């Protein structure tokens, strides 16, 4: 099976099947509401692909992906609030939530976000650039392993606290009540479906990029750094550069996911980007299989679905289930679901040889 998917035909048919499900079956079978929910889950899956790359392949347990997710989301939300205010009250108008907070003048750093092009450029550049800077700061000084994990977690906490304190960024309530997405009405079912298609398309692109990164020489190098960083350094590579690339890619994926998340869900607040949401991103990746390509996607979708389906009937049981999933999957099945497939395959192969020998 996995052999097949390593071939060109396999890759194509894999992507083909995924596209068929995402673009064909899902819109036909799901109600508008469920499709919107799926779009939200796809955003989590996009984040998960990046974590799979940074953690699964690169060994960097990033417990602060909420920061990059939040950056992308807030940047998009700023544009949408600006566009909304402009449409209602003319150019340079103050968004509604600022009026409520008693802010009468548009803060200067908001002004350029009236431009869609500027906004998209910032979504692509700002979180990635921040990840590069932070990555250099910590990786060059060889801060790694647990130290890196805890720092990234503290970063998520600090970022959420910082946002809560900024009334001009919506404070604790965050930014919500968006009406238009680049000029399209958000309450139109057709446009909601369009958002779903964007999420699905971006997920496929992100998976393709991750696939290319994994199979390239860089991908091999990344695994080498994960398993023996000093050896790589003594071969003449700057290991920090190699890690920064994966970290920045993960940040970019998270930022793009955040940017799509905002129009899909209709709100972004510090509650979605702090320490706990950041660590919850990890859960799906761990369950699906951190080092595999598709595992994180499947895991993220499964966890999000389970949360929605189970939490309403058994809110207390779901918290137990979450905790136990962390414990059981990571302690007993560090390769996630993906490794179950590999194990059964090996088992089958073994029994096949036994039969052949008999």
């Amino acid at each position: 099976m996995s052999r097949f998917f390593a071939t060109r035909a396999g890759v194509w048919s894999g992507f083909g099947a995924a596209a068929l499900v995402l673009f064909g079956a899902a819109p036909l079978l799901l109600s508008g509401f469920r499709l919107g929910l799926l779009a939200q889950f796809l955003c989590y899956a996009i984040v998960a692909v990046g974590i799979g790359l940074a953690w699964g392949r690169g060994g960097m347990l990033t417990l602060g992906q909420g920061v990059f997710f939040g950056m992308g989301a807030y940047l998009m939300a700023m544009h949408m609030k600006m566009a909304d205010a402009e449409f209602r009250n003319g150019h340079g108008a103050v968004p509604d939530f600022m009026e409520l907070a008693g802010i009468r003048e548009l803060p200067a750093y908001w002004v350029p976000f009236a431009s869609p092009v500027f906004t998209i450029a910032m979504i692509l550049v700002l979180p990635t650039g921040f990840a590069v800077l932070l990555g250099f700061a910590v990786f060059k000084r060889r801060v790694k392993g647990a130290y890196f994990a805890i720092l990234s977690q503290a970063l998520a906490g600090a970022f959420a606290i910082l946002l809560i304190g900024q009334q001009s960024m919506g404070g604790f309530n965050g930014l919500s009540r968006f009406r238009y997405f680049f000029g399209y009405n958000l309450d139109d079912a057709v446009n909601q479906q369009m958002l779903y298609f964007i999420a699905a398309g971006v997920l496929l692109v992100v998976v393709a990029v991750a696939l290319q990164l994994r199979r390239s020489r860089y991908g091999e190098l990344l695994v080498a750094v994960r398993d023996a960083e000093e050896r790589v350094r003594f071969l003449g590579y700057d290991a920090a550069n190699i890690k920064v690339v994966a970290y920045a890619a993960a940040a970019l994926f998270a930022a793009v996911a955040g940017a799509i998340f905002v129009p899909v869900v209709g709100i972004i607040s510090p509650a979605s980007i702090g320490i706990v949401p950041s660590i919850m991103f990890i859960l799906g990746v761990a369950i699906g299989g951190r080092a595999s390509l598709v595992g994180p996607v499947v895991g993220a979708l499964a966890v999000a679905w389970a949360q929605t389906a189970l939490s309403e009937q058994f809110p207390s049981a779901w918290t137990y289930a979450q905790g136990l999933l962390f414990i059981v999957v990571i302690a007993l099945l560090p390769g996630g679901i993906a490794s179950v497939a590999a194990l059964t395959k090996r088992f089958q192969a073994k029994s096949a040889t036994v039969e052949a020998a008999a």
Partner: protein
Amino acid sequence: MDLLVGQLFTGLSTGSILLLAALGLSLTFGQMGVINMAHGEFIMAGCYTAYVTQQVVGDAGVSLLIALPVGFLVGGAMGLVLEWLLVRHLYQRPLDTLLVTFGVGLVLQQVARDVFGAPAVNVTVPEFLRGGVDLLGTAVPKTRLFILALAVVAVTVVALVLRFTAAGRRIRAVVGNRDLAETAGISSRAVDAGTFFIGSGLAGVAGVALTLIGSTSPTTGQSYLVDAFLVVVAGGMGRIKGAVVAAVALGTFQAVFETYSTASLAKVGVFVVIVVFLQLRPQGLFTLRTRSLA
């Protein structure tokens, strides 16, 4: 002037709280390299130990004195179970330990919620710790003085145990060189379990003490955990001395920064300071040098 004295004391006091919360971590994370995200829940267990003890005993003063050692045993016992069930199987996978113990923390929080209910419960402050004493014109709460004293005692005891007892020498030997310690006949299994017991027990003690100033609810431990980790990171692996200096420095920084700014910005400031600091000293304030390549 009053405010300045008050703030300096606050820095010291905040530092002592951080230190109390971080001391156990400094042992388990610093000495063993195990990142125990359930440490916060062990603190919470200490809080509820104080609550239950008070329900049983009645008198707030007596129950506090009983709860301190009981909290140590409760936290320590939970730590032993965790070590035996999960952590010892994961010594080669520190990042996985982090995630597994996070899961344990989630479960423990929910257990507390189901057993004690979600709202905060009240642990009465004993009569002799109510009110404040006058210090250079500022009222300093007795509870904070008590916690400060407790932190000093705890650090002293841990340092003495590490330095002068046979068990402490074994711990230091295993930290210094696990293989060599093994060949010298030290069971690193027993030492690991023992270290975890002491580290988690200290979390329990911290929990009991923190009921004097904070709330006792299922999420109590969470509020201390990240700060405590930052103390250990900034202080350097395996160094009690580093944890003490880092805790007091961070506490004072937070208190001073907060006076001139907001509490929220102070938190962000602490993070920035730590990242910058790690640029200068990536291994923390004080480091153990080893020849290993890890």
